[in-house]
C-alpha cells in the first residue's frame, strides 16, 4: 500500500510539472517528485532491517545503508536543482514581467517576428 502512496506523490509532482502554468509552482512540483523518489529509496531500504545502520549499539539487524547514502546525494543535488531553477525563473521574471509560462511563450514568439 505504501508503494502506491509514494507513486501517488510522484504522480502529483509530474502532474504539477506539466499542467500548472506558474513557473514557481512548476519548481515546487519538481521538488515534490524528487521527494517521492527519496521516499521510495528510503522505504525500500527500510524493509531490510529494523534498526538504524549504526554499529555498536546492540540488538537488531541494521537496515541497508546504501540507499540512505545515495539519497543523501540526491537531496543535495535536488537542492542545487531547485536553486538553479529559481535563479532561472528570477531572470525570466525580470525580463518578461510575468511568471505565467504561456505569456512568456507568447512574448518570446512576438519578439521574434
Amino acid at each position, binding site marked *: 500500500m505504501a508503494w502506491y502512496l509514494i507513486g501517488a506523490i*510522484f504522480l502529483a509532482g*509530474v502532474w504539477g510539472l*506539466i499542467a500548472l502554468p506558474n513557473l514557481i509552482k512548476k519548481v515546487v512540483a519538481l521538488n515534490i517528485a524528487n521527494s517521492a523518489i527519496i521516499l521510495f529509496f528510503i522505504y525500500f531500504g527500510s524493509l*531490510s532491517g529494523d534498526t538504524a545502520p*549504526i*554499529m555498536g549499539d546492540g540488538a537488531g539487524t541494521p537496515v541497508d*545503508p546504501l540507499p*540512505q547514502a545515495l539519497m543523501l546525494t540526491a537531496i543535495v543535488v535536488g537542492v*542545487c536543482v531547485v536553486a538553479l531553477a*529559481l535563479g532561472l525563473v528570477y531572470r525570466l521574471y525580470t525580463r518578461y514581467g510575468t511568471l505565467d509560462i504561456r505569456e512568456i511563450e507568447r512574448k518570446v514568439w512576438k519578439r521574434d517576428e
Partner: protein
Amino acid sequence: MGARAVEIAAVLAVAIFLVLALGGEHPTETPVRAYVVEHGEEQTGAANLVTSVYLGYRAFDTLGETIVLLLAVSGVVLFVEHRQ
C-alpha cells in the same frame, strides 16, 4: 484543447507505469548490504554505516556531489547577480 489532452495522456501513462512498476515483488536482501553490514566498521572505522559508505566506499560520489554544489552556487550567482 489538444494540449490538455496531451497532458492527461502523459499523466495517465505515468500512472499506469507506476501501478505496474510498484505492484511487483521487492527483494530486500542484497550482497552489497551484507558486505557493508559485516565489514563496514572494521574497514573504514566509522560506526555510522552511512558515513562509511559515502566517505569510505563511495568517496568519489561525495567529491562529485561537492562539485555539483559548487557549480550550483556559481550558476545562482551568475543568474541572479547579472546586470544588463
